[in-house]
């Protein structure tokens, strides 16, 4: 098992190298906006542009740039400096990481707990009015994009522009360490909006997974033993959850993508917003840093999922 984990981690590093290389090709080799040109002001002099290119290191041959870039990332854990503010990408990310972690972790909890419980209730009351309502709602939640849902929530429930002034609106985020209560209330709407799609996806899958397991022979055995129905359902849920764990790993990427939009809509100063602005300003080092961080999260999440799977299903053994 330990060897399996080590091997997976090494493969994760290989994958990150590939991602870094792809990022370089995407932003430096393929034609994009010239960052030097963007910084040379209106009606730029070619000489000034050249000077800025030298300062940003863009005048060196691409192969040299690539080597410098990879060497810094993987040997010195240095993602470079923002073209825009000259700050180190590492400190920019570190500054904004708590907001994004607050948003994504909270949303992930809501997603898993909400999705699974709705799925369980629906599966146990199949074809009832409650089931139809929940599944109809889930279909809606899967279908609408986060930015639209976010705006609808703001127009309906935010304390500034909302119809029903319930929750703090956009731009109200405060760090947990400053004021836990304000932190919590400011994140309620972003959590719901970010979790909605994934939770609905999970609810529908959990419904079908549990409906299937409740038909299994071992559930009949559990009933034949005279177990109380609650215990029977628990055994069904225990089996039905396993396939969801694999899907969790896949869905983490979707959630991180959604976080970019939700941070933009709710004006939360997080990594997503940093990424979004870095694209607008051709701030390549920041783009690369944030994307690598996201990739690392997804790779780690999937390793954790696979290890958890072996632990939860005794029939699975990795070697």
């Amino acid at each position, binding site marked *: 098992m330990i060897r399996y984990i080590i091997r997976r981690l090494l493969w994760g590093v290989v994958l990150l190298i590939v991602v870094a290389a792809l990022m370089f090709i995407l932003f430096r080799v393929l034609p994009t906006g010239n960052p030097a040109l963007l910084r040379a002001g209106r009606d730029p002099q070619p000489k000034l542009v050249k000077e800025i290119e030298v300062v940003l290191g863009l005048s060196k041959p691409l192969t040299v740039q690539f080597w410098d870039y990879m060497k810094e990332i993987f040997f010195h854990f240095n993602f470079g400096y923002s073209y825009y503010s000259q700050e180190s990408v590492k400190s920019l990310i570190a500054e904004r990481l708590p907001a994004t972690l607050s948003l994504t972790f909270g949303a992930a909890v809501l997603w898993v707990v909400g999705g699974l419980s709705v799925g369980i209730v629906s599966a146990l009351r199949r074809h009832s009015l409650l089931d139809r309502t929940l599944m109809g709602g889930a279909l809606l939640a899967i279908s609408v994009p986060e930015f639209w849902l976010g705006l609808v929530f703001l127009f309906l429930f935010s304390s500034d522009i909302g119809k029903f002034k319930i929750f703090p609106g956009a731009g109200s985020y405060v760090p947990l360490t400053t004021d836990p209560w304000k932190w919590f209330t400011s994140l309620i709407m972003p959590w719901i909006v970010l979790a909605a799609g994934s939770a609905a996806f999970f609810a529908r899958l959990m419904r079908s997974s549990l409906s299937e397991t409740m038909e299994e*022979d071992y559930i009949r055995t559990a009933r034949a*033993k*005279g177990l109380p129905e609650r*215990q029977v359902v628990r*055994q069904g849920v225990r089996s039905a959850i*396993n396939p969801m764990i694999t899907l969790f790993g896949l869905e983490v990427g979707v959630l991180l993508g959604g976080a970019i939009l939700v941070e933009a809509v709710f004006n939360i100063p997080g990594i997503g917003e940093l990424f979004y602005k870095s694209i607008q300003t051709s701030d390549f080092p920041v783009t690369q840093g944030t994307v690598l961080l996201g990739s690392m999260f997804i790779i780690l999440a999937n390793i954790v999922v696979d290890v958890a799977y072996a632990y939860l299903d005794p029939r699975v053994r990795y070697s």
Partner: protein
Amino acid sequence: MSDAEPLLRVEDLRVEFPTEDGVVHAVDGITYEVHAGRTLGIVGESGSGKTVSSLTTLGLTRRQGARISGRILFEGQDLVALPEDRLRAVRGNDIAMIFQDPLSALHPLYRVGAQLIEAVRAHSDVSKAKARERAIELLGLVGIPDPARRVDEHPHEFSGGMRQRAMIAMALVNEPKLLIADEPTTALDVTVQAQILALLERLQRELGMAIVIITHDLGVVAEVADDIAVMYAGRIIETASAARVFADPEHPYTWGLLKSIPRLDGPREEDLVPIPGAPPSLIRRPTGCHFHPRCPYAQPDHARIDPALEAVADEPSHFVACLLESHTRRRLWSELGAGRTPAQALEAVGLPGTAA
């Protein structure tokens, strides 16, 4: 059957499932008795209603939307009318059940021991440690070697025969008075089948429970059953002591079952005689005798008249539902017993036949 009060008496049990295609008449008015310490074999093809009738005994068809009528008297108590929570106290306690495929019938994610322990604790308020002792004791009783170690293994670490032994152990933890075994050996190798049957017989002797064994395999009931009920299309069409059913069967369907299994003591060149056709749809059943479309001896009016289960002339504990005359049946069976085909038997007896 003795005159003593039976342990289980099923009276005119009907189980119907309303579906989109129509009502499935899975069990259509069956009556049988099981006495303490005895073994009843229920025999029939798949879809003859044998499994549904026993699942209904435990109330396990209720949540599938079955319409159930008739009575299931267990120690004088009607299980059909019993509310769910009181029936739950009977399940796995007074009446236990084992199933066909022991791999899918055990929860793959829980240890074998945990599954036995919860069976104990569902019916008696004992500590986990006590229940675990009981689990190990039972695993030993059913012949699982090193039970103290294997109690902590998962079902996939057991062989097929060991899994069925574990299922039996699980069914017996609360010392049931009745064990329903639904095709307990079908998914197992032949050598293992014999071991499991021997185990059931031994446990029955030691624990004194009654057994209902459901199977399509006459070889199995020949080994263990005291009485046999043959089911076809949701009904019992013949019932008698096991010895009687094998020596003097009265129903053409039973003849078909007996003639379609090879015998080691018969002449080797004797052909097996399969029953033609397939079991009927339980939604639109044949008119008259449900077996007439597949019966080589059916007469024209058998498509009209529905036979009742009646006692055979000189044997009050042997019942059969057949429209043929009693003496005709006996002559047909003696011809078949002499190795004739159904067509030859018909000709010898002088019946106008439909057998082609």
